[in-house]
Structures are given as structure tokens and as C-alpha cells.
């Protein structure tokens, strides 16, 4: 079976920044569980069991007890055990650290298929923390040799000390042990990839990856494709030509964005099926809130009235697009926002319907003057601006150009500028821009976390190691948030993202931030990204029906959704 993968990395080391997650995760390496979005306000998501057969949560004792499947095996035939999960926790601590500093108090493996995590008292509603979904056992046969005896004690000792006395923690013997393990882990490159998933990775080149069906997978009987061949779509995304391969049915499944022309051709092609799925990304225009005149909320609002968000999204998509334009810009997508924001609340927000007259009134109220079709600022200078975008993807460049032309037509002389990705990131973090194209995670299942991607570090008064103190989009750092009063914006939104769980309080906070974003417009959301699942029935049929809940799942967890389809017996070779 041939699919497409958004992946350019190549390392078999799970902890490497170059780990080929797109190839390995879910196909060859199983998580304990996969999140599924829910509209239940008492939960952010439900969990579909994978390697974990079940779990028990004890809020009083602050524990989560994982019961692993007893029939799960690694490619080398060894069983998946709680030791493999312990390895993941310990090496994650060595590698990332932050995970453990605030939340974990203890780890234990009382039996080969039972694992207990004890959380600190400040972690509320631990089933909401997403740990179960994030846990991924790694083979002890591969990674065990990197860990000295006693590493668990060192990790727990260090993290406990880090919470109370970071300076002492950095000098402790435990920290020295962790550093040594980290150096080994950084340099480690396994010769083969040992997984426990339905497929086994045979080979990866710069252009494609080859996986074959794993005989040791616990659900192998239900998996019908004999293998998966993945096309690397990102390494040379122009020329590898995923779309010609798709249209000629040399790719059986592709989940992603495509120009409207390709989508239209696919809809009319034979042996072609598709389903759409909401993604967690919103397309946004960020203002530099520290730079005159964008520091004035009326100017930002005026621009919101000038930008026709529907047209902008259509132009970006090359015509009609499955993505949906944002009717009410408040920082959350249509698939997440209505769960936390009531209809009445939503309708009380400002839709900023395209209205150049209203935009002109706002500018005039600030003593901007229009002369010969061009706006002049109160300081006497012409109102000019630049909309920057990364040079890839090209959609971003098109969006920047379209926005610039809309502003120019209104009388604000605007140009679009495409910058290479790395240079573009630096400009944003240093606050060296007027308006920038970007994406935010307004579709994050925890709505405040979606706001955090825009208003938290590093986008806003970032905590980035290299740009500490630089303003990013420069909103705040202190501002009045409805319902919260005057707060430090990046710190508060980050804290609430980390420590607020599902329930009435999250709904209140979501509404508070929604009002802020809608009224103050630190950024303007204009499109909710939807992905399309293109699937071919040339070689495989028995795809799930269109109303199957796994299709929307592909918007957020594409690979795991595809694997779950196979686990449920869907996707069979034709004939």
C-alpha cells in the first residue's frame, strides 16, 4: 500500500530531533492509547486503547495504573513489558526534563504488564493530562544499554530537587549522571528499528520508506495490506509530485492539503474516494503590537474590516478550498470553539464582516487622513506596511500577497515579502515585522493552549534562549483580559494551558481569552485548516464509510487513524 508522509527526518533514535516520527509512529511503534475528540465538556478527549489494554485512575492516591496488553510483542519476538515503559519515562526525563519537573512524583513497575505513575499534588484530574496518550514504550533490548543502574533513582532525585532548589539540582551528582546518559543518547543511532506496531520498517531512503507487515503484531490477523510504502513528500515537495502519483493511483492514501484544481480532478476521477477532516491549525495574520500604528487596537480592527477573510482563504487555496473561513475571529476553530463557547456568547462577538467604510471610520477616529486614495498617518507619514510570509509553503506567499493587495486597494500601501523559513522565524521572534502570516493551533483540544501558541512564548515576549526579552508579536506583556483583570499575558496563558483541565473553569477561561482576541485582535484568524483524505480504490477497497468517526480523527492523528482503520478490518486488497 502506498501512502504519503510529511517527513524529512531519518534517525531511528526515538529521542533524536531527526527521528522519523512520520514513518515510525503508529505504523511501527504503538502508543498506549490514541486521543479522540469529544464534545463532552468534562473531558478534552476520550482515549482509544492501543498497547494499553486498560488503565485505572485514582485521584486520591494521585496514581495512574497502566495495564499493558499481554500479547504485544516487539519485532524481535520479545514481549512488550512495563520495563519498556519505564525506559521511555527515564529517557524522556533525560532528554526533555520539563515533563518531570512539575508533575511526576514516582514511577514503579510492580509486574511485567503493570506500570504505576504517581503524580504530584498540583496535577488535577490526571486523566486529562494526556500522559496516557503520550506514553510510548520503547524496546529495552535497544535502549536499555544506555541506562546505568540506578538511573531511576537519579532522575527522581534530580526532579524532586529541581522543584525546590534548581541551583542545587544543577550541581547534584544525579544531574551529572543524567548529563552523561544524555550525551550517549544524543550520539546513539540504532542499526535497525525495533517496533511493536502492525508494520516493520525495512528501509528508508531520502525519497521513500518501505514497511512490511509485522508477523509479531498482536492484531496481525486483521491487518490486510502486506506493507506500506511511504513517499517522502516534504524533502522535495515540488518535484516528487505527490499529486501526479495520487491522480495516477500510484499512491493509495494521502492525507493533507492540495490545490483546489487537484481536489476537483480527484472528485471526478474513477476509483477515487475522499473524506474531509478538521485540523488543529488556523491560518492567521499576526500584527506587531509594539510597532506604530499597529499598537493601536483601532488600526488592527480597521485592517480586520478591510481583509475579506473568505476571499483571502480562497485565493490561498487556489480557488475553492475545503478549509473554512473564520466567521468570528476569536482564536479557536469551528471544531473546538463551539464546545467551550456557547452560541449566545459566540454571537455577541464581533464578526468583522468585510466593511471598508467601517475601517475608514476607525482610522479617521484616530486622525488618519485619506489623500488621493492613500491613507496618511497622524504623524504625517503615508501609511505603508509589509506583510511577510515564509517562502515555503507557497500558500503562505499567496496569502501575504493577497492580503497586501487588499490593503493597497483600501489605501494602505502594502507589499508582500517572502523570506526563507529560518530568517523568517528570527524576524518574528525579534519583533522585526509589521504584519506576518502564520499558523496557530486554534484547533487544540485544550482551547487555552490554542491561544498559548499565539500569545505565549516564543511568539510573544518569548522565553526563547536566544531571544529572551525580545517582544515577538509584542502583545502586552501585561494587559487586561476580560474576566481575569490585568495579567502577564504570555505567562498566564502558558500556565493556564498547562494546569487547567476540562470542566466549567476551562469554559470560563476559554470565553475570557476569546473575548480578548476578538476585541483586541493581537492577531486575525482567517481560516480553519481542513485536510482531505484522498484514498484510491484501485488496489484497496473496503475503506470505512464516510460517516465513520475515524475519518475526522485523521485531521489530528492521521497515521494512528489509518492504522486503527486497518485494525478494525477495513482496507483490504482488491480482488
Amino acid at each position: 500500500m502506498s501512502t504519503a508522509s510529511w517527513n524529512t527526518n531519518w534517525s531511528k533514535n526515538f529521542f533524536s530531533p531527526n527521528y522519523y516520527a512520520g514513518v515510525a509512529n503508529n505504523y511501527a511503534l504503538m502508543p498506549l492509547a490514541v486521543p479522540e475528540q469529544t464534545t463532552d465538556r468534562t473531558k478534552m478527549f476520550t482515549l482509544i486503547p492501543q498497547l494499553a489494554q486498560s488503565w485505572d485512575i485514582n485521584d486520591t492516591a494521585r496514581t495512574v495504573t497502566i495495564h499493558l496488553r499481554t500479547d504485544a510483542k516487539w519485532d524481535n519476538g520479545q514481549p512488550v513489558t512495563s520495563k519498556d515503559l519505564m525506559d521511555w519515562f527515564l529517557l524522556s526525563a533525560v532528554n526533555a526534563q520539563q515533563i518531570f519537573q512539575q508533575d511526576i512524583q514516582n514511577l514503579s513497575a510492580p509486574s511485567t504488564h503493570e506500570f504505576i505513575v504517581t503524580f504530584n499534588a498540583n496535577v488535577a484530574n490526571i486523566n486529562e493530562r494526556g500522559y496516557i496518550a503520550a506514553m510510548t514504550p520503547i524496546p529495552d533490548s535497544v535502549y536499555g544499554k544506555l541506562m546505568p543502574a540506578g538511573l531511576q533513582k537519579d532522575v527522581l532525585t534530580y526532579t524532586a530537587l529541581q522543584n525546590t532548589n534548581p541551583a542545587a539540582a544543577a550541581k547534584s551528582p544525579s544531574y551529572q549522571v543524567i548529563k552523561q546518559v544524555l550525551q550517549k543518547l544524543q550520539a546513539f543511532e540504532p542499526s535497525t528499528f525495533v517496533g511493536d506496531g502492525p508494520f516493520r520498517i525495512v528501509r528508508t531512503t531520502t525519497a521513500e520508506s518501505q514497511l512490511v507487515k509485522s508477523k509479531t503484531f498482536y492484531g496481525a490477523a486483521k491487518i490486510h495490506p502486506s506493507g506500506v510504502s511511504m513517499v517522502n513528500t516534504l524533502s522535495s515537495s515540488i518535484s516528487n509530485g505527490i499529486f501526479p502519483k495520487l491522480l495516477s493511483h500510484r499512491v493509495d492514501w494521502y492525507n493533507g492539503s492540495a490545490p483546489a484544481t487537484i481536489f476537483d480532478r480527484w472528485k471526478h476521477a474513477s476509483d477515487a474516494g475522499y473524506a474531509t477532516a478538521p485540523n488543529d491549525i488556523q491560518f492567521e495574520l499576526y500584527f506587531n503590537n509594539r510597532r506604530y500604528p499597529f499598537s493601536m487596537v483601532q488600526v488592527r480592527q480597521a485592517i480586520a474590516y478591510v481583509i475579506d477573510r473568505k476571499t483571502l482563504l480562497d485565493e490561498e487555496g487556489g480557488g475553492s478550498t475545503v478549509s473554512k473561513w473564520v466567521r468570528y475571529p476569536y482564536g479557536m476553530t469551528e471544531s473546538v470553539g463551539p464546545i467551550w463557547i456557547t452560541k449566545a456568547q459566540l454571537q455577541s462577538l464581533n464578526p468583522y464582516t468585510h466593511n471598508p467604510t467601517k475601517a475608514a471610520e476607525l482610522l479617521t477616529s484616530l486622525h488618519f487622513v485619506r489623500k488621493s486614495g492613500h491613507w496618511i498617518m497622524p504623524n504625517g507619514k503615508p501609511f505603508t506596511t509589509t506583510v511577510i510570509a515564509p517562502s515555503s509553503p507557497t500558500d503562505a506567499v499567496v496569502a501575504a500577497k493577497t492580503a497586501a493587495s487588499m490593503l493597497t486597494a483600501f489605501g494602505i500601501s502594502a507589499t508582500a515579502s517572502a523570506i526563507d523559513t529560518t530568517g523568517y522565524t528570527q524576524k518574528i521572534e525579534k519583533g522585526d515585522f509589521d504584519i506576518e502570516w502564520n499558523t496557530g493551533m486554534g484547533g487544540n483540544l485544550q482551547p487555552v493552549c490554542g491561544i498559548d501558541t499565539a500569545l505565549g512564548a516564543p511568539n510573544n515576549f518569548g522565553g526563547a534562549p536566544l531571544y529572551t526579552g525580545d517582544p515577538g508579536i509584542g502583545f502586552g506583556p501585561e494587559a487586561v483580559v476580560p474576566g481575569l483583570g490585568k495579567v502577564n499575558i504570555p505567562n498566564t496563558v502558558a500556565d493556564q494551558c498547562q494546569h487547567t483541565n476540562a470542566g466549567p473553569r476551562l469554559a470560563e477561561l476559554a470565553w475570557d481569552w476569546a473575548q480578548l482576541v476578538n476585541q483586541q485582535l493581537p492577531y486575525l484568524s482567517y481560516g480553519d485548516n481542513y485536510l482531505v483524505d484522498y484514498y484510491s480504490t484501485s488496489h484497496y477497497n473496503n475503506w470505512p464509510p464516510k460517516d465513520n468517526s475515524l475519518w475526522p480523527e485523521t485531521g489530528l492523528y492521521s497515521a494512528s487513524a489509518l492504522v486503527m482503520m486497518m485494525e478494525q478490518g477495513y482496507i483490504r486488497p482488491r480482488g
Partner: protein
Amino acid sequence: MLSYIVRRVVVSIVTVYVVISLSFVLVRLMPGNAMDVLFNQLLKQGGLTTQQIYQKIKFLYGLEPHAPLWQQYVQYISNASRGDFGQSILTPGESVLHVILQALPWTIFSVAISLLLSFFIGIAAGTVMAAYRKRFSGKIITVVSTLLSAVPNYLIALLLILLLADLHPIFPSGGAYSSTVAPGWSLPFVASVISHVLLPVATYVITAFGAWALAMKGSVTTTLGADYIRAAESRGLRQQRILQTYIGRNAMLPMVTALALSLGGLFGGSVFIETIFSYPGIGYYLIQAVNSRDYPIMMGCFILITVAVVCANFVVDLLYPLVDPRVVRAWGDRAAKVSRAEKDEVSATVGSGAGGTT
């Protein structure tokens, strides 16, 4: 001759040093840095919040080196002179040398074949263009060569992929070999390597042979006007013999020089072609390093290209006299003339000095 060689060696070393130094400074003036790229990579991987990612980057890599630039420079030059080009920033634990040694065989393989093919095709075409420049065939070849040498190679690459890999899937569109074949000295692997290199080679040849052809045409045309050609014709020698022995050999001399110099450049690979075809050569990794601001990898590639070009120049300078003995005689004559002129000048000076002044 010895002093000439020594001079050339010194100049070569100085050239390499200057290029390395300039590269060291210039790459660090580029906006952006490896930490930003790493951040985006980790963000795409998922599973960590932005705060966690920053903590991780800080823990793994520390902040930007605090040492002043000149100290970093001195350290780098010192290490490089001992063959230590550092480690990749974005692939911790992987040495620059390892990355280059992995990529180099693919580059040498593809670009060497491409270069030699385009050279020989270009030579043949250029000779025809010059010899039959008044005929229709000569004119057609001239127009085609001129047009193709002006077309960007990435455009040809995209067209070839569209026509021969996508619309008509005759060749693979990318990679160095198929992921279905185990690497090794086996027929399936060799066949896979060959099938994967054909389109990149075709791209290179199509866009490069025109330049060789035009250069050869110029060289042949110049040779055609030489007196010894007229003398050979007036002696009644066959046209074929004149073309091969008199015109061909003399016209080839500058082309051989150019080929030798080009061989030095082949170590840089073809950035566009390798990127478009995902061909894992030096050019492919250089582009990745530039995009991700992986300074050590960038510097390693620049050093490789510089040393290769300088060495190629040096070797050509040494070997050219073997190809064209007239160069040695001319050099000898020139040296003798200089020596005589110097002697005369000294004699005149001594004479006037001895005579004294009034």
C-alpha cells in the same frame, strides 16, 4: 620549475585559507540560527509544549556560544587543520566528516558520469558546429545547444520528472536507490542505482553539453584560421585527417584544461539537481545545512569544494606542460629572456656605476 611549484603550492594554501575564513564569517551573518530550526523540528514532532521545547534546547545545546567570534574562528581553524570539522548541530553525535563521506560517493558517481558525458557529447557537437557551420545541420545543432545551455537545470529536472516519472512512470522520481532493494553489491541494487541516476544525469547533460559545444566550436573556429591548417590543406591532406589530427588535437587543448578544472567543481555536486531528485549527495546536504543553519556542515562542504577546485587548478597547472610541450618551451624561452634582460640591466648598472657620475 621547482620554484614555480612551490609558488603554486603556497598560493593554493593561501586561497583555501582565505575562502575558509570568509565562509566562516559570512555564514554567521545569515539571519536565523540552528536553534530556531531545531525548535520548529521538535514542534512538528509533537508531544512537547513550546516551553518544554525551549527547556530541552537550552539543556541540550546551551545558549549561543558566548566566546567571541574571533576565538571561535581560531578554534575552528586549529581543529580544521587537524581534520576535525566539528559535529552537526542538528544531528548531535554525527561528525561533519561522516556526513560528507556518506554523501561524497553519490556526488562523484552522478556528477562524474554527467560531466564526462556532457563533455564528450559537447565536444562532438561543437566540432560539427564549427566544421559544418554553413550547413543546415550545423546551424540546427548550434541553435539547440544555445537554447539548452540557457535553460535552468531545475526546469529541465521538473520536466523530466513530469514526463518520465509521473505521467509515464518509466523512471523513479527521486532517491538514490529503491527502498525495496537491500544496499550491497548485487545486481538488483546496482540496477536500482543505475535507474535512479539516469534522470539526474540526463538533466545535467541536457543543460551542460551546450556550453561545452559552444566552447569547442569557438576553439575549433580559432584553430581553423591557423596557418598550419592552410598549409595542411595546401599539401593535399584528406579533410578527415586534417580534422582529427590537426584541428581536433589543437582545439582540444583548452577543452582539456576546462574539463580538469570542472572535475574539481564536481565535488560540490549540483545543488538544484540533487535537491529536486532527493539525491543524497553533497549538494543535497549542503542545501539542508543552509536551510537549517547547520554551520559545521556548511563549512565542511565549503572546505571540500574549495580544496577540490584549488587542487584541480594546481594539478592542471602541473600537467598541462605534458599535454602541450610548447608551454614548457615557451616558459623556458620566457625565463631565458627575463634572465638575459636582468643580466643586461645589471651590466648597464655596473657599467654606469663603474664609470661614476659627474
